[in-house]
């Protein structure tokens, strides 16, 4: 177990460097540079700027210094003078993290609950209605859902503020908008998983022992049914990361996601590279956690 985790953690380093290299080469191949956009500087200033950020060096030197700067946190942002990439990520990521976690918590709570209801009341009106709602949830794009919720609950009923990010009241709509599609996926996965487990021998044994129905369902059946949901958490993290990009634009949330798009448009190469590396590490650690979680859910699974 420990060796497995250590090995996987060590693998992350070369993978992230490789990904950074791909991103970097993409930026290099694109026509134009960070400082020859809309405003044109006098040539001396342009040269000075490029020298300051080593843009006049060969690409491998640039890449090396980017990586070194990212590793010790001193890489400066090209477009926001005086700030390092680390500081920029540090100030905006907590907001995205809170948004993503709230959305995920909402998705898990709603998805697992309705999945269990669907499976226990299979082929009843409860089952059909929750599963139809789930398919609708999967099909409505979050950038359509967001404005609709704002129109309805913020501007129409006035229950929540329509935008911004200060205080729990403003967290509700963005978290629901981001989480609903995942709630729908999780509901379908939980239902399918429960249906497979609910007739298994160990569940019948639990019932035969005379355990209360909620203990049978929550402690015995659910644990076996959750494996597909846990598998989904890996890709879901990736989707939540990109999802925050849109949600932050819709609700004007000052998080890292939308900031990343701005940096890409501004050609703030160091910021783009920093965010790509940062999010890749998060994603890979999340995938590792998912693999570890299997062993807890299903003792038959061995890590190799």
């Amino acid at each position, binding site marked *: 177990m420990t060796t497995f985790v250590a090995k996987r953690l060590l693998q992350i380093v070369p993978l992230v460097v490789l990904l950074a290299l791909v991103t970097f080469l993409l930026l290099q191949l694109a026509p134009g540079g960070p400082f020859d956009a809309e405003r044109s500087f006098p040539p001396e200033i342009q040269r000075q700027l490029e020298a300051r950020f080593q843009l006049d060096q060969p690409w491998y030197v640039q890449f090396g210094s980017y990586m070194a700067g990212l590793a010790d946190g001193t890489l400066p942002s090209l477009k926001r003078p005086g700030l390092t990439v680390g500081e920029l990520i540090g100030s905006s990521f907590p907001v995205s993290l809170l948004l993503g976690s709230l959305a995920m918590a909402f998705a898990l709570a709603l998805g697992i609950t309705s999945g269990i209801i669907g499976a226990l009341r299979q082929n009843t009106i409860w089952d059909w209605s929750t599963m139809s709602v789930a398919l609708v949830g999967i099909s409505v794009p979050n*950038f359509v859902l967001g404005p609709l919720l704002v129109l309805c609950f913020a501007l129409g009923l006035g229950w929540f503020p329509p935008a911004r990010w200060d205080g729990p009241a403003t967290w509700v709509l963005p978290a629901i908008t981001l989480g609903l599609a995942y709630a729908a996926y999780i509901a379908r996965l939980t239902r399918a998983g429960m249906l497979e487990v609910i007739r298994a021998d160990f569940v019948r044994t639990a019932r035969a022992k005379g355990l209360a129905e909620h203990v049978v369902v929550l402690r015995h059946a659910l644990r076996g049914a959750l494996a597909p949901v846990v598998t989904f958490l890996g890709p879901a993290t990736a989707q939540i990361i990109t999802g925050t990009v849109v949600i932050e*634009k819709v609700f004007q949330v000052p998080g890292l996601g939308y900031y*990343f798009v701005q940096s890409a448009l501004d050609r703030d190469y160091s910021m783009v590279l920093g965010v790509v590396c940062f999010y890749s590490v998060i994603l890979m650690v999340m995938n590792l956690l998912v693999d570890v979680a299997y062993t807890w859910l299903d003792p038959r699974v061995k890590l190799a």
Partner: protein
Amino acid sequence: MSAADTHLVVDERELVAGTSLWQDAWRRWRRNRVSVVSAVVLVAVMVFCSVGPLAAELLLGATYDGQDISLGASAPSWAHPMGTDVLGRDVMARTMHGGRVSLMVALVATAVSLLVGVTYGAVSGFVGGRVDAAMMRFVDLLLSTPYLLLVIVLMAVIPPSSVSIGGLDGSFVLMFAALGLVSWLVLARIVRGQVLSLKQQEYVEAARAIGVPQATILFRHIVPNTLGPVIVYSTLTIPSVMLSEAFLSFLGLGIREPQASWGTLVSDGANAMVVYPWLLLAPGLTMTLTLFCLNFLGDGLRDALDPRQGET
């Protein structure tokens, strides 16, 4: 041989005339009413988007970029069934045109992903051994990255004008390539798995024995047999590509003015929804309906073509 004997033979043939996989699947699919209704609605949406603009121009004189500034943003009326936008353009004509663009991007990008994914997966599975291991490691690597972030970077830094092919808008070409090149990964895995088991079959051995070249064995004899899962997965790729296109366009990174897609229309609509809600509702609901039907159709096809595969 007497007439009665011939009759008997014919009868027997009719009895043993097996149902092919496709007939079987067709029968199963037709029983799935929701899926059939979805297919009908989808055809209607396609007609709406392909023939619609022409009809709108002939009947109402409305085109997607024709302006009537004096009108401004007007609520739905007989002349403009879905209203007009801030610049006085007919929203229905724009929704149709946007749908054309969104559907085209989704179909072409899915075709790109099919081409890349099937070839990659088939070669990987057929060659096997170390090559297979290396090729699949590469897919795993890409799957473990937040690749949509890379697409954002790609769309942001490459000016569309630099990649336009012929008369085709550069932002379209970028979109086809970017979305096609990221959605082939899972497909490659599925095809590889299929090929791994198919290449052990007797008919492949027979083909080898009579000296059919390797490439022909792979693409003439093996790949066509992977079609079922490939069709199922592609049907589900179309809505996800459509969603990605709209996502990028919504961020201002995809289709650019004067072109429009459902993503850009929803983006414009969201900005103006407080005063002119129909600007959001018309494209937003059309797109949602389309995605809904595509998902149902995909689900139905999966149940029909691949009954063993459960829900995912």
